[in-house]
């Protein structure tokens, strides 16, 4: 083994020790949802006729194609059941792999932990090599388990394997992207942002590519997420496509090692430039804004882009189905306009969950600042605990509201442009703002956890995922009504379909305030955790 790789084995063991909860949780989660989906698919579409009808409908709906992709074999139950998984869940898998790789490379480098280890017999390339090895192992296990889960759920074995290997190869490709990004920037946060931005771009490329008629255009073939769809598991099982993500790894991984060889420990691609010698930050509010605004800006741009795209797809909704049954359904729902509203409501509720995710990440700054030791210096001054905690929490609340406002306006603008109805902007904005209280409840839960059990800050993500899973699969799992009622999103009025949801909104706001007050009370009385 070359000297630059010395200590890789030790780092792999250390990494597995640190991820001993995280990785099994992720892997089991992915296996569980694939299994549930396989079961649900056969239950929902028992015969070929119903499958063909649903698949044709999905393929004819531009918004669905843009979001999830196409079904390449309308008779295939596997391709239909897993429509949300080839692109959307793959993107989530990619994000998790980015987090995993950055955490063990640039994250440890920035915190100085690698310097500590570097005093021992540790080669320059060992951190990157160990992170990629852990990620390879995780991807392979996750892919094979997902394949087994699909097969156990009653789907054909070959397709299940193609699907699982697709996940493994695509996950690994994005691990390689993260490994490269970790060499470029001096901060872990920036490296994560860069990688997730790359995921978003590849997702967008395949969305546009998939919309082209007929079938995918060259744009889909430029995107690793597009490749995963083009494997066409259960709809042809094109194994050769698996070579593309593997080839990407073979290019990116050596490139990352070359970049690493050319830089110092702790350095990015650019040398650190000097900044202002005197500061203009006038207090903790300024500081919170300074620490958080860049991330909020990135979210805002993503919300606007996403909003305009899904908003403009509204014109296709009415043409969704041409079968007599569907036309009856549309009439039953109150005509095409009502269907447009129903589509908008569905999209906007997704935006509500995404805004809540932003709220959690912003509120969790409280914990990361405390853990980094920054809070101790601030609380040593005349700043009170409440004031400091409010700075980040209020930024999170305001950010959630701003994002949903942007989502409403941009979805409305896209829709208004597409079907020439300017009134849609107002309706969709009101609808998006109606999601704010539910997202605030989730944000407040993050503050509550910070106040009482700061070590569990990461578990708030699990809570949010559980809410999403309950919303998605609650009925399928026969979850009790009271359990599903715990989700604030269930109580959000689905404007513009609903109207008169004010009592529910008021109740959600009160709930958010109560949880926040509880969080503040805990934070006031607990020790500062070093």
């Amino acid at each position, binding site marked *: 083994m070359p000297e630059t790789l010395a200590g890789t084995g030790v780092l792999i063991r250390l990494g597995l020790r640190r991820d001993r909860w995280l990785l099994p949780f992720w892997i089991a989660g992915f296996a569980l949802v694939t299994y549930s989906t396989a079961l649900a698919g056969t239950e929902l579409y028992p015969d070929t006729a119903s499958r063909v009808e649903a698949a044709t409908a999905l393929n004819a709906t531009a918004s669905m194609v843009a979001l999830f992709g196409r079904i390449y074999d309308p008779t295939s139950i596997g391709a239909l059941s897993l429509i949300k998984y080839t692109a959307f869940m793959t993107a989530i898998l990619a994000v998790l792999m980015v987090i995993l790789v950055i955490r063990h490379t640039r994250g440890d480098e920035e915190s100085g932990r690698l310097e500590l280890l570097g005093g021992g017999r540790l080669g320059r390339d060992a951190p990157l090599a160990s992170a990629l090895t852990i990620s390879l192992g995780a991807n392979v296990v996750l892919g094979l388990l997902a394949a087994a889960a699909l097969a156990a759920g009653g789907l054909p074995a070959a397709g299940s394997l193609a699907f699982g290997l697709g996940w493994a190869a695509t996950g690994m490709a994005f691990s390689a992207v993260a490994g490269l990004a970790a060499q470029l920037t001096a901060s872990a946060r920036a490296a994560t942002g860069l990688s997730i931005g790359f995921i978003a771009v590849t997702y967008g490329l395949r969305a546009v590519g998939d919309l082209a008629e007929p079938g995918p255009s060259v744009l889909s073939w430029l995107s690793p997420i597009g490749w995963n769809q083009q494997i066409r598991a259960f709809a042809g099982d094109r194994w050769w496509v698996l070579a593309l993500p593997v080839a990407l790894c073979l290019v990116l991984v050596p490139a990352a090692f070359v970049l690493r060889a050319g830089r110092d420990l702790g350095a990015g691609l650019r040398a650190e*430039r000097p900044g202002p010698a005197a500061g203009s930050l006038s207090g*903790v509010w300024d500081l919170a804004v300074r620490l958080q605004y860049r991330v909020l800006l990135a979210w805002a741009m993503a919300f606007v882009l996403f909003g305009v795209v899904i908003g403009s797809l509204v014109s296709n909704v009415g043409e969704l189905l041409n079968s007599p049954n569907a036309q009856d359904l549309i009439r039953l729902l109150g005509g095409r306009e009502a269907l447009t509203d129903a589509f908008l409501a569905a999209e906007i509720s997704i935006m509500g969950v995404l805004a809540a995710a932003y709220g959690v990440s912003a509120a969790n700054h409280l914990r990361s600042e405390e853990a980094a030791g920054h809070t101790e210096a601030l609380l040593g001054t005349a700043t009170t605990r409440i004031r400091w905690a409010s700075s980040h929490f209020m930024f999170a609340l305001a950010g959630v509201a701003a994002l949903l406002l942007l989502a409403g306006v941009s979805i409305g603008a896209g829709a208004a442009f597409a079907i020439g109805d300017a009134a849609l902007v107002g309706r969709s904005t009101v609808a998006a703002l109606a999601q704010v209280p539910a997202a605030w409840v989730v944000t407040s839960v993050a503050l509550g956890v910070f106040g009482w059990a700061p070590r569990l800050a990461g578990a708030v993500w699990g809570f949010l995922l559980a809410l999403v899973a309950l919303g998605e699969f609650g009925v399928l799992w026969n979850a009790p009504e009271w359990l599903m009622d715990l989700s604030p999103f269930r109580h959000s009025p689905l404007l513009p379909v609903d109207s008169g949801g004010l009592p529910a909104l008021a109740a959600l706001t009160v709930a958010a305030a109560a949880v926040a007050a509880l969080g503040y009370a805990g934070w006031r009385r607990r020790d500062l955790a070093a």
Partner: protein
Amino acid sequence: MTGVVKRFGSVTALDGLDFDVAAGEVHGFLGPNGSGKSTTLRLLLGLLRSDAGSIRVLGLDPWRDVAALHRRLAYVPGDVALWPNLTGGEVIDLLGRLQGGQDRARRDRFLDLFELDPSKKARTYSKGNRQKVALVAALATDAELFLLDEPTSGLDPLMEDAFRGCVRELRGQGRTVVLSSHILSEAEALSDRVSIIRAGKVVETGPLEQLRHLTRTSVTADVAAVPPGLDLLPGVHDVVVTDHRVSAQVEPAGLGPFLHALTSVGLHALTSQPPTLEDLFLRHYGSGNDAGTGAGTAVGAVADSAVPRRSGDA
């Protein structure tokens, strides 16, 4: 603080700690790693809450009167963590404003004194430079009380000297300074009084002169002949004889008879070293028994390796 108890889960970090600092003095707070120094300072700041006992700082309750109290004190944490993206100057100014204002001229003077470049990003600072950022931010304020947690642990000797000048200046202005340290010479050079903490209790407190009676003077003498029975004298320990040279550790009460015995046989040369705080430490921490009941680290072992140990001091 009187009778202060602080537990972290099943670990008792402070176990009935009594600690008094008079206004206007420089108080050295000595103890090995893990003995509870930082915990005590964090309690004084209201960052932690005590489980028992009472704490008053400048007449205020640090847990309840946080803002009022903190306007009057300045704190330098033992482990200075800065925001990697902000420059040193930005951090100093931010902390100063949160403190309720700092003196621009003092800030610039201290930046010069400590030779700190405030335009660099905190990510690029060394440990010593991060410490300087916190020190400049604290020293530039107009606080009555300065709580400094191991303030020189990352500074080079020149900077340490500059820091000592700053502390003397603060004392000259009538300000109170609490200085935690495991570096004995530092507390010795600066402090009016010291308190020694061990395993969550203050075991000694008082002016240095008063504490010195607890220790032994190290005596080395060249003599014409070695008088017999030196090691039998009361208060004389660790007698080592090589040719015509005698060295021993002698308690204050035993000095008279010991010197008398030496002079009676013909004394050529005598060197004696006054007791240092290291001796105090050895007496309190170097006793080899298990002192590891503090905040989770093996107190005894750390002190043993940190202090040049003299033989047979148990």
